[in-house]
Each structure stands twice: as C-alpha cells, then as structure tokens.
C-alpha cells in the first residue's frame, strides 16, 4: 500500500523539544476543531507535545455542518470547554471584538515568533483583526482553499477521450477555465462507464451552514466578484450585483442543474467525498484538506486520482478555507495553551505537520524547493493560495453568511427568481446588517 505520508517522522521533532521551557504543572488541555482528516493528523502530531511538555491533550472535534454553530455558541456562552480553538477564518473579527480570543502580540514578541515566517495570505486571513493590521489573534494553523479532483483513470481512458474529442472538439484534460469545467462535467453527466451511470461533478449545495456560499464563491471569484467597490466602504451596489457576478451565479445554477448527480441538493464536504469515492462522479469540488486522504484511498486514490486548482475565468480566484489556532480567553489554562502554540510554531513541527497531512502555512515548509513535488497536489495548493479570497470576516459574519446562504440556495436549488434578483436582495440584507452594526 502506497501512502505518501509519514515515514521517518517519529525521529523528527526532537529538536523542538529542547526549546521548551520547563513548566510549572501538567495540565489537561482541550483543543477544539472540526472533525475531518487533518484533525486526526493533529492528534498524531500532538503526541509529541504531550511527551515533551507533560500536558495531556484532549480533543473535541465537531463535524463541519455543526462546527460554526456549536463553537460560536460555546464562545458566546463564555464556556471553557476549549482551551485552544482552531476556528474558521471568518470568526476572527467576532473573536477579537467580543474578547473570545486572547491577543497574541505580546506572546509572539516574547517568544520570538514572527508572523513574517508565515505565508502573507494566511497571516492576513487567519490572524489579523482589523484586517491587515499587525494585531494577531491566531497563529496560522492550516492553509486551505477550495479545489478540484477527478478520476484520472477515466480521463486517460482512450474510449472516453475519443468520445470527448468528438463531442467537444477538445482534448480531454484538466479544465483551464470555468466554462471548460462545466463542459467537461456535462460530458460525463449520465454517461455509462463500467456498466454504471455516472455524473459530472459534485459541488457544494448545502443550506444549513456555509456550503453553498463556499461553492458559489468558487465561481464568483474567477468572474471577478467583489464585495465592495472600495475596500472598507461597504458600498456594495454595483459590486455584489455586477453583470459578472450575475453571470457567475447563473453559471453555478446551470452547473447544478446539468452536471451534478441526483439527490445532491444539500451536499457539502462529506457528500462530495461520498459521491466521488462511490464512483458516482467524474470530478468533485472540495477543500485541499481532504486531498491527502483522497490520494490514500484504496478504491479511488493513487493513480486513479489527480487534482487541479479552481479554474480561472476572467481572472484566477479560489475560495479560501483554513484556520488559525487561537487561545480562548475563557480558558483557565492559558499558559499551557500558549505553550502549545509556541511548540506548534516551531519549523520542525510545521514540517512534520505537512508530512502528516496538515497544510502548514510556514514559509520554511512552503518555500522548501522540494515542497512542490512532495505530494501530487502540493503545487496546486501553492497556486491556489496565491489567488484566494475570503468571505466577510466582520464580527457580523454569521448574519452576512446566512443571508447569502438563503438567497443563493433559493435561487440555485429551489429555483426561485433570477440571479439578478437574488444578488439585489442580498445587497438589501447585507445593507440592513451593516446598518444595524452602525457601519452604514
């Protein structure tokens, strides 16, 4: 069995041990994160921290559809379930302004941790509030973006390749634009392969948390979508509902209607993986975080799979995922929690993190000449992170997100109204939120 993962990992990281200062007492730390493949890797990684520091690590992993709900509820109720939280990038505004997260500047200064050592896009997205200022509330823990993967065995099948050439006049290959992506997916839709009916691609359509917004923005950004005409001004008219945005939204709906498997009306990460692993689809969108696991999958991984970055249209653009690690201000074990962050920021630990399947944001890992070839998706990852955009990170992000979930789902899945109307209404909703916030 081929696994690209850890091999000589256990020998590593001892170097990190030496820098740990002796601690007063052993604590029971709880780290909260989403339940997914990288979280299991983090458990593995953290064993080393336990051995060095004497602290015990507990983990509370919550499935993605409930993650934001549960964790924001926990923070807002002032709970101390979590000492450390790997929270989603959009929470940083609320975490900072409402005092849920401990500000880390002094700690970074004292321990000599420099944010210049991390990829700028990740520092900007995961750590700073207000955006872009040197006020840090998290350490970039996991870089991530929305990307694509496909059945390489189908894409290289001579019969399928010939049929594709005949149908489209192009060679079957990784799509270079969004429109090629759709065309390719439509080609596979309801095609007979190995005696089974297969479908084009599985995309995000989930209603409850953030799914469909993350999917739609993967089309919006390449079309040149902007949240505001001028950053920081909250003037959205003409930006959010620009002709390009309307076209992109219509594109996503066409994609949903003509190139996705039946029943995928409320699907997010898990469903997308299921569709792919059960052999139902030729392509699927998902976060890079899952790619190590997909590559290792015995049924559809290995040489049957390959990966590509979200294709550009008018410009390059990928939807940002990923998280920073923060210390929860309600925790009474903050010192031990900070110790964990200090250990985690160590370049050796970061290197091991990447080997185990976590996406390090540390420059020493990303800029390593061997990085690109260390995994079949590593190069795609770097490319994606070069053109990522994130959703609003405002303290009111949840309200903004839920409004978009509703408007977009109503239009794309429930087939109500037009794209123009959906985006116009979205501006109304968002304006109302910003008025309530006193920002408009």
């Amino acid at each position, binding site marked *: 069995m081929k696994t690209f993962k850890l091999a000589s990992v256990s020998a590593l990281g001892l170097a990190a041990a030496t820098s740990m200062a002796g601690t007063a007492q052993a604590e029971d730390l709880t780290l909260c994160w989403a339940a997914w493949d990288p979280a299991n890797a983090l458990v593995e990684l953290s064993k080393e921290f336990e051995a060095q520091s004497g602290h015990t690590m507990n983990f509370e992993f919550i499935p993605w559809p409930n993650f934001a709900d549960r964790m924001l509820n926990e923070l807002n109720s002032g709970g101390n379930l979590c000492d450390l939280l790997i929270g989603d990038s959009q929470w940083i505004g609320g975490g900072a*302004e409402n*005092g849920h997260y401990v500000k880390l500047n002094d700690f970074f200064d004292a321990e000599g941790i420099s944010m210049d050592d991390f990829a700028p896009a990740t520092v900007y997205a995961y750590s700073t509030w207000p955006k872009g200022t040197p006020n840090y509330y998290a350490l970039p823990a996991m870089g991530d973006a929305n990307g694509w993967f496909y059945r390489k065995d189908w894409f290289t099948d001579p019969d399928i390749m010939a049929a594709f050439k005949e149908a489209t006049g192009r060679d079957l290959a990784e799509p270079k634009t969004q429109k090629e992506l759709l065309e390719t997916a439509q080609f596979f839709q309801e095609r007979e392969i190995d005696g089974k009916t297969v479908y084009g691609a599985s995309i995000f359509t989930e209603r409850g948390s953030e799914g469909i917004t993350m999917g739609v923005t993967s089309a919006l950004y390449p079309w040149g979508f902007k949240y505001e005409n001028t950053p920081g001004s909250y003037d959205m008219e003409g930006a959010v509902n620009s002709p390009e945005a309307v076209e992109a939204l219509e594109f996503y709906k066409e994609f949903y209607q003509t190139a996705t498997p039946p029943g995928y009306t*409320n699907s997010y990460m898990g469903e997308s993986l299921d569709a792919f692993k059960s052999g139902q689809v030729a392509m699927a969108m998902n976060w890079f975080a899952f790619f190590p696991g997909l590559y290792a999958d015995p049924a559809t991984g290995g040489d049957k799979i390959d990966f590509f970055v979200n294709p550009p249209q008018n410009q390059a653009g990928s939807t940002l995922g990923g998280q920073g690690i923060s210390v929860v201000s309600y925790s009474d074990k903050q010192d031990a929690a900070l110790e964990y962050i200090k250990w985690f920021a160590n370049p050796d630990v970061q290197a091991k993190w990447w080997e185990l399947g976590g996406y390090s944001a540390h420059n020493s890992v990303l800029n390593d000449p061997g990085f690109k070839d260390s995994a079949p998706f590593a190069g795609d990852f770097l490319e994606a992170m070069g053109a990522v955009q994130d959703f609003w990170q405002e303290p009111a992000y949840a309200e903004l997100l839920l409004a978009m979930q509703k408007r977009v789902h109503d239009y794309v*899945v429930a087939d109500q109204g037009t794209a123009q109307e959906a985006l116009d209404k979205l501006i109304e909703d968002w304006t109302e939120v910003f008025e309530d916030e006193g920002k408009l």
Partner: protein
Amino acid sequence: MTDTPAARAAQATPPNVARKIKGLSDRAIAWIFVGPTIFLLLAINIFPLIWTIRLSFTNFKANRINREPEWVGLRNYERILTDSDIWLNMQATAHFLFWTIFFQVLIGFTLAYLINKKFKGNDLWTTIIVLPMMLSPAVVGNFWKFLYQPQIGLFNYIVAFFTGKDPSSFEMLGSVDLAPWSIVIVDTWMWTPFVMLICLAGLRSIPDYIYEAAEVDRASKLRQFFTITIPMVLPFLMLAVLFRGIENFKMFDLVVQLTGGGPGSTTELTSINLKREAFEKWRTGYASAYAIILFVTVFGLASIYVKALNKVKER
C-alpha cells in the same frame, strides 16, 4: 406573603383535615410541598418569559457583550410583521400543521376503530404501532434522511416498486415540490399513534348500553357510527388535534434533521427560522420579539380552540 398559592391552599383546607395533630401545621406543609415547584417554574419559565418581553424592545445581541443595547420600541415587531419572508415561513408552518393533523386524524381514528374490534393480540400490536412516538425525533429524523436518499435510500425503492418509477428520478428532500410532503410523511409516521391512542380512549369510553339501545331501535350500523360513535369520540379527537397542533407549531428537531429548512426556504418552519435568528445570527432582541409573536399566536389560537372544544363537550 398571604397571597401565595400555598398560603391560599392552607387557608382553604377544610378544618377536619387542617387540624394539627403534631409536627408541622398543614399550612407549613402546603408551603413546603408547593414552594419548590412554584419557585422552579418562576425561575425557569416565568422570569425568562418576562426577560424575553423586555429584550424584545431592544436591539440586544447576545454575541456582542461589549455593546450597550438600545431601546428600539416596537421596531422589532414592525420588522417581523412586515417581512415577507417570515410570512412564507408561516405558510410553510401552516401547510405542515394542516396536513399532519389531517393525515394523523384520518389514519389514527381508523386504526383506533379497527383496534377497538378487539381482535386477538390487539394489545401487542397497539404497542408496536406506538413505538415510533416514543423515540427521539432527532435520532429518528436523522435516519429518515438516509431513507429518503434517492440513490441509496429505501424509500424511493419502495415507491419505485409499487409505481414502476425510476427510484432516482425524484428527490423527496431535495425538490421544492416534494420536501414539504417529506416532512409531513415522517411526522405522520411518528405521531399517528398518539391520535390513535386518544381516539381509542374515546371509543372505549362509550358504554355498551348505548349501542344496545340503538340496536333495539333498529338503527343501522352505519347510522350508529354517525350518530353515536363519531359524536362521542369527537371531544377526544379534538383534544388530540389540540395537542398535535401545539406540538407541531413548535416543531424543530425532526425537520431540522430532515431538511434543515431547505431546499431554499421551502420547509423553513417558524421554529427553525427563529433558531437561525436567535442562535446563528444572534439578533437576540429581534428573535425575542419573534418568540413573543409566536407565543401569542399559539396561545391565542389554542384559547379559541379550547372554547370551541368546551362547546362540543357541553352538547
């Protein structure tokens, strides 16, 4: 202190019972016995209700601890009542309420009527029918989601077996037309037994001699059914409808697990919408006003209904 229920209780206690033998007086006992319950209800039901009313006039947000809430008067109420999306949620709720009650009464009464034939083993089969309503709606609802999956779920295959349709040609939870019915089906599956049990109690409360008298008068079975059975069971049936109505107005767990309100907002019942406002958007003041409106609605409708029910009973 003299106007508490316990004190009133003690005062109203008849002398023969109230006589003190030894130990605590009856008045003190009434205090001690009722006190904790009243206190708990005041603390966890009444005080929060009053607090909710107060919050409903503010723009308070529970996730913004540092921000001073402002009084906004009736603005929250105005916003809710003029919001067309909320009216759509109300419509979805009304659809759900009407059809669940319709099917549950129809099937529930029929089952009770059949069970009342007292065939052998009716007791055991009644218990088996009752099982769904005893189970956790969240856990069961979650599993129904699995049953409804067009590719891998059982439901579509069973429908396909009887209708000859292609099982993956329709999506119970995903299509705008079918999703409202998918939640009606699960709720009916779960709660028909409740209506059935109440109807059964009604049927069993009818004394045999009434039928015997009708038989003497040579009334046909059909006539007996419409002149005796239905009128005698009606108060019970109406009661069952009241309970199901109140419960389904509050419906949350089952539907959240099944559709989460989707697709779009087609099954977004008021409770789900309220949860989004209160615990996802954290618009606490706004959500409080919403909660009060729902409470007044259900309380008002229930009161009118109870008046009608009492009229039926008096007849």
